[in-house]
């Protein structure tokens, strides 16, 4: 090692003497430290994250599998118990009256075909009937109006009549 030091010293002196190139004091020892710090920092072995170590990873994996299996088993059991109701009448029935006021919600739950049937039936039974009645009422009012004064005519016309006429 002594010969290497001597050789290094000779090279440094030669550059200083013949080329006028200088270096800061203790430059080589500081530079050595810098290089070692950089190299060792870059080279630090990649440590396995603790939860990836087999000792911890396997039990965690096993518990996850167990948890999934239990959830699946419980759900399957619940499904079976629902199917166990042999008498279908025991199941809660759909009560159209509950949703009567909310047509949009009802349409989401009831199949479209069923809604169309319901609407056809409603139109046939109620709207047409009401229209016929209103027509009849109008006729009566017209006939009556022939006998009653014009000023009294307004008393016969109520809100429902106006609504039905609009429809």
């Amino acid at each position: 090692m002594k010969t290497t030091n001597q050789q290094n010293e000779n090279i440094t002196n030669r550059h200083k003497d013949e080329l006028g190139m200088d270096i800061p004091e203790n430059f080589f020892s500081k530079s050595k430290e810098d290089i070692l710090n950089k190299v060792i920092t870059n080279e630090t072995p990649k440590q396995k994250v603790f939860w990836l170590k087999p000792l911890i990873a396997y039990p965690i994996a096993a518990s996850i599998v167990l948890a999934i299996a239990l959830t699946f088993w419980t759900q399957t059991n619940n499904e079976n118990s629902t199917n166990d109701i042999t008498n279908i009448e025991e199941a809660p029935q759909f009560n159209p009256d509950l949703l009567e006021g909310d047509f949009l919600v009802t349409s989401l739950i009831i199949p479209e075909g069923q809604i169309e049937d319901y609407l056809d039936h409603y139109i046939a039974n109620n709207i047409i009937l009401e229209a016929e009645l209103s027509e009849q009422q109008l006729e009566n009012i017209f006939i009556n109006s022939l006998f009653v004064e014009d000023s009294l005519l307004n008393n016969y016309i109520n809100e429902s009549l106006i609504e039905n006429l609009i429809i």
Partner: protein
Amino acid sequence: MTQEVDLIKKLKNPKLKNEAFKDLLDMYQERLYWHIRKIVITHDNANDVLQETFIRIYKGITNFQEKSSLHTWMYRIAYNESLRFVEKNKKNSSVSLEENNNAYLNNLREDTYFNGNELQLKLHTIISKLSEKQQRVFQMKYFDDLSFREISEILNISENTLKSSYYSIVKTIEEKILVSD
């Protein structure tokens, strides 16, 4: 030679690598620094390139195939790193020889760690007027004390060409120094 073989073995052994690398630094840090300094000229730049060089050596030592000596392999890395640095810092890709000479001398004057006298500045001026390859040949042989065989491996030039080129460069330098005196 056995010392170098032993050192390579240790450098390739992960358990002994860090210790062996410290020895390698002790042996080659100064020599490689001066080799780099003559190419990049200023101390600060030489320091940066030296660090990069040793980081490359540390990373690449496991793949070192021992086709050349460790000594030559390291010089070649230092040489390539220095050239890479010079290329990166060139303002224009096409620079004339005259502009190169000016850049050499400007860098030298700007360097706070250059305190050369008139004769030393004269030597630098003469060196700066040589072609880049001639500068490297002269510096590697005269200042770095490398053998022609080692220089030929680093620069990829045949030994015979190197020899004749070196002696003609030395003659030119001597003449120019004498003329200016």
